[in-house]
């Protein structure tokens, strides 16, 4: 039953509407490409800084970086409409940032400061910025998939033209909520795009050891009447094309998509994990495929000025410095807020 992996191949396995659109997509406009580059860089630099802050013990608890996976968040961020919804996981710093959430708010939240997006009440795994359509980061594997379906249902019912995009990992395809969400979304023909970021590992275990098919998203899409889509997640142009096609499809009323995006995380699963279970050659091969330097080269090859790219880099570096500084200077949250906003009336009162 196993099909061959077609890594580095932008075409879908089964040719459907989305696959065809990906194939026919030209390269994005230069402005879009610069925006994609800028967005990937912002993600990368922010998370590298987050890593430094752990090392200085300024970030407590756990944290999950997506270093190496930035092309996916960046491409979807660019392709989405402002009022679309995103749902992501504990590995969701980038997916939140690309929607327009404040970088200071993100770093502040990781540091448990009052300037944090959630004033420290959520933490690294729960970033959320509703005003930007970033509808939350969920830390129970799979749970956000049916929630994304609900936001899509709401858009469908209100006829708002909004689409919900839901990011999750390869390991998530083995839990029940994945299955329920996919079937439900297909049956109700909901405007939702499920993005399986296959980074080859479920925490410390290779995905192949715990999954009955080779491509956990693409090989399972047909079980929901959906087309198989498998793309290179380290090529931001391709992800952008796929995102645009799947968003268009959803917006046109043609229902959900499940897009499998192959990628790799540069570090371990979480703060506690050095990632030693991965063969050195595997890591090295994927470092070669780092989406950011490769894209820089591609832009240069396409005739974009090196100075333009340099400026972007300098600007983003400055942005991260600024965000870090503000967050560092922010106080811890006032203790009262630990007992507010459980209920819509702002309180946490359960008795009279």
């Amino acid at each position, binding site marked *: 039953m196993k099909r061959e992996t077609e890594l580095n191949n932008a075409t879908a396995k089964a040719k459907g509407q989305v696959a065809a659109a990906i194939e026919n997509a030209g390269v994005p406009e230069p402005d879009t490409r610069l925006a994609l580059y800028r967005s990937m860089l912002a993600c990368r630099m922010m998370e590298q800084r987050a890593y430094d802050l752990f090392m200085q013990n300024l970030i407590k608890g756990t944290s999950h970086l997506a270093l190496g996976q930035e092309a996916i968040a960046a491409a979807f961020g660019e392709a989405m409409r402002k009022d679309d919804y995103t749902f992501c996981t504990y590995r969701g710093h980038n997916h939140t940032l690309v929607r327009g959430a404040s970088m200071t708010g993100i770093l502040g939240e990781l540091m448990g400061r009052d300037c944090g997006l959630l004033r420290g009440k959520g933490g690294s795994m729960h970033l959320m910025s509703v005003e930007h359509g970033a509808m939350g980061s969920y830390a129970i594997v799979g749970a956000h998939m*049916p929630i994304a379906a609900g936001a899509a249902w709401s858009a469908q019912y209100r006829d708002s033209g909004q689409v919900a995009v839901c990011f999750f990992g390869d390991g998530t395809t083995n839990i029940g909520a994945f299955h329920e969400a996919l079937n439900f979304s297909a049956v109700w023909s909901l405007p939702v795009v499920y993005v399986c970021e296959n980074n080859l590992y479920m925490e410390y275990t290779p995905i192949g050891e715990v999954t009955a098919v080779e491509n956990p998203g693409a090989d399972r899409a047909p079980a929901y009447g959906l087309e198989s889509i498998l793309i290179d997640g380290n090529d931001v142009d391709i992800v952008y094309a796929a995102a645009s096609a799947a968003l268009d499809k959803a917006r046109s009323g043609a229902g959900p998509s499940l897009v499998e995006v192959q990628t790799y995380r540069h570090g371990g699963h979480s703060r506690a994990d050095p990632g030693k279970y991965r063969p050195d050659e595997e890591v090295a091969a994927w470092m070669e495929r780092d989406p950011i330097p490769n894209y820089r080269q591609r832009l240069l090859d396409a005739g974009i000025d090196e100075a333009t790219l340099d400026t972007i880099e300098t600007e983003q570096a400055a942005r991260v410095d600024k965000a870090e500084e503000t967050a560092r200077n922010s106080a811890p949250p006032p203790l009262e807020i630990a007992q507010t*906003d459980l209920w819509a009336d702002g309180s946490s009162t359960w008795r009279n």
Partner: protein
Amino acid sequence: MAQLSYREAVAAGIAQEMRRDETVVFLGEDVAAPGGVFKTTEGLQAEFGPMRVRDTPIAEQAILGAAMGAAMTGLKPIAEIMFSDFFAVCWDLVANQMAKTRFMSNGQCSFPLVIRSANGGGVRFGAQHSQSVENWAMAVPGIKVVAPSCAADVKGLLAAAIRDPDPVLFFEQKSLYGSKDEVPEGEHVEPLGKAKILREGDDVTIVALAAMVPRAMKAAATLASDHGVTATVIDLRSLVPLDVSAIFDSVSKTGRLVTVEENPRLCGWGAEVSSLVAEELFWDLDSPIVRVTTPHIPLPAADALEDSVLPSPEKIVQNVLKLAD
């Protein structure tokens, strides 16, 4: 006023709210075209159409996830979980997601949704279709918990739950579906978090919920007629918010408290009420606090066995009399 069954009052409450608010939508298994396996939602799809009243696959996580996602983006969904025992297959959406997300986000969004479910025993459905799980919900911060004992409250509290901006678990006690009483015909909304005093007496306060309320009332009648003991009977109606004042006001007069729960013995709402009184009203107590519950066992299916373990009016009477000694 009209005579409605507890069952009919469900559709009446939902219809009342769907008429006044376009954002109220309803989903569940076999609820739309078929009208629900308990026939509680008949006629709703006919009146409100297939986009507002929708059948789902057997996928309780999808149902509650959909309700949650819709609630945070502008709708007011009502979801049905057919039997409350099935909360066990979708508890994550309740306990970890909808209960916590508003708090975690520091109030960035709200979850105006209701989950209705047929709760409790007494109908010989066996251990996996008979549980009283309102205590599961009460233990989770962020969930409101309502459990009416009569048709009028079904309509009025369901309406209030739908209007409430927070997630409400609404437990319909399935052994009560056939019971009838007077229900206001026009708009009817009861406040959440207010207990109802059904009968006043001087000797003891009996606090009950849902199907235990009529049993407590029967016990109170017997106590008065056969034993000269007069009881105040309080129908809690809602566990969160909890009307602690109503309980305290009464116990401070009677000095005696008996709670009557359908759920198994350990960690029920009765324990919470008892411990609240033991902490804050201790000096007003004239005797031990007694809890009447089902023993700490699953419910057996056979009628004789099931009847033998649920709290009966006789058991309530016996327990009250123990105190009067």
